[in-house]
């Protein structure tokens, strides 16, 4: 399966052509993917914010943003600029250090998790061996940032919001990890690349969603809960807690929370598409298309085609899921905190445990379908 573009190798060879040593070439390479991912994440957020405003407007029979650019596409940029130039307020009785550190702790793990998101065979920052486990570990840091900002604001609504956020993310992390574990069991690997490759044998038919329907639903619910999206946005429930842990924040610090939540949403959508919807895979396997066109799989044209269709497919699947998440947000009511915890502990946890057990049994019974 080792085909496809290897940009890092080509870049290093290109620099070596100018007489640079391979070490310096490597150091020059290092910041490029990181910058690319930061830009991709921020652009993704801008697109999602615009989608959210437009779709919510459509759901409520309004027009939505219209004047900033065609169809209001510049509206998110205007929002961002407004947040940039707003005054940065730290409340007088707040704890300054923790108040500043909180939003950073929320945002950094989310961006770090983009390390493992693949857009193609070699199109990811680092194919670390622990792959998807890294994301689970990193996403468990977030509640500390939320608790920190909730506590440091010195406001009862903020503290309640922070506590709710921590309780919610602890309870939903376990079913999330268990449903990922079922996928890992089928793949025999934690690496996101292997997880996608294992689904690429027969196009749409071999996607994990057919073999893990329960896991898919559990994962999606838990991902929405981890992102604090409606119907699970209790930590910032406007009617009860003003804005939860964000209440006292203004300007760029608020923008960090805002960015963090949207980057997290896109990241979750990307991971759902990687784990269950075949990642960068086209519904029809590329090998079949190559055979149909009578081209060898290593031909430059096919390689460019594969890489570009990989990026397009990943983003398309992710944004389809983002669309569903936005529709869910504007059409469903919020659950209560006891219903939320009941759902997590009494329904999703047993179901995901049973799913793991059944997957293990099926893997033993039908190794050719469920990974040998």
């Amino acid at each position, binding site marked *: 399966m080792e085909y496809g573009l290897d940009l890092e190798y080509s870049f290093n060879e290109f620099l070596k052509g100018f007489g640079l040593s391979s070490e310096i070439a490597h150091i020059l390479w290092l910041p490029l993917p990181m910058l690319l991912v930061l830009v991709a994440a921020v652009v993704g957020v801008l697109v999602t914010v615009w989608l959210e405003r437009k779709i919510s407007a459509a759901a409520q029979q309004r027009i939505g943003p219209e004047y900033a650019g065609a169809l209001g596409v510049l509206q998110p940029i205007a929002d961002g600029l407004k947040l940039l130039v707003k005054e940065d307020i730290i409340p007088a009785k707040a704890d300054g250090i923790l108040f500043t550190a909180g939003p950073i702790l929320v945002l950094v793990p989310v961006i770090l998790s983009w390390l493992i998101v693949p857009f193609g065979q070699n199109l990811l920052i680092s194919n670390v*061996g622990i792959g998807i486990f890294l994301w689970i570990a990193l996403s468990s840091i977030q509640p500390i940032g939320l608790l920190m900002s909730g506590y440091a604001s010195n406001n009862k609504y903020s503290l309640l919001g922070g506590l709710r956020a921590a309780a919610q993310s602890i309870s939903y992390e376990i079913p999330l990890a268990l449903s990922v574990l079922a996928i890992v069991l089928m793949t025999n690997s934690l690496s996101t690349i292997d997880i996608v490759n294992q689904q690429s044998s027969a196009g749409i038919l071999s996607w994990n969603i057919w073999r893990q329907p329960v896991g898919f639903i559990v994962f999606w619910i838990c991902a929405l809960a981890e992102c604090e999206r409606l119907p699970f946005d209790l930590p910032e429930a406007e009617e009860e807690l003003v804005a939860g842990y964000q209440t006292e924040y203004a300007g760029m610090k608020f923008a960090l929370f805002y960015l963090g939540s949207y980057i997290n949403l896109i990241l979750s959508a990307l991971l759902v598409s990687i784990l269950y919807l075949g990642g960068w895979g086209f519904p029809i396997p590329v090998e079949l298309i190559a055979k149909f066109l009578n081209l060898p799989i290593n031909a430059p044209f096919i390689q460019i085609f594969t890489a570009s269709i990989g990026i397009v497919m990943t983003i398309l699947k992710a944004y389809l899921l983002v669309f569903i998440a936005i529709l869910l947000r504007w059409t469903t009511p919020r659950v209560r905190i006891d219903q939320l915890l009941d759902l997590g502990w009494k329904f999703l946890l047993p179901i995901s445990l049973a799913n793991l057990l059944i997957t293990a049994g099926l893997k033993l019974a039908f190794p050719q379908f469920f990974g040998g």
Partner: protein
Amino acid sequence: MSIAITTQFICFTVLSLVILVGALGVVLLESIVYSAFLLGGVFMSVAGLYLLLNASFVAAAQVLVYVGAVNVLIIFAIMLVNKKEDLKPINNINSRRIISTSICLTLLSLLIRVDLTNVWSLSNPLNSVGEESTIRIGEHLFSDYLLPFEVASVLLLMAMIGAIVLARRDVMSKDISTGLPVDQELIEKSSEPLLTNKS
């Protein structure tokens, strides 16, 4: 020194400094909230040290278990009972401090002895496990370390049952510590909705 080794050295120095300063802060700071957050920082830096040792799975597990679960629960508990009151002065504080310092020093000398006597260098550094470590850890957990692994899970189960017993006293007919019958009214007051029956 090549660039990779320099980077490693800088990372190691920074991580060790953060661990030392953070751990001292956890013990010495007056505010319990700061101690708890610093503890999280110390756990993260230890995970960083594991990463430097090429043990990425252990590092991720450290973050997941210690930062994501243990530390979050500690902070959670502190915030639920965060009362602004001055702690009572403890009797014989000096003798207590002397005893705890001597215990810590004994532990430190034991660790130093282990550090000096153990052979740390690998016989063949190129033979290190690296990315395969996840598989190796799994193999060990289900073969020669099976018994400790299972005993640990039984321990966790016991702790969980204990916590449920302590938290849900209303399901017991007698109080566990005193043996007296439990006053059900005190534990679970019937909550009346605020807005109904107020016409």
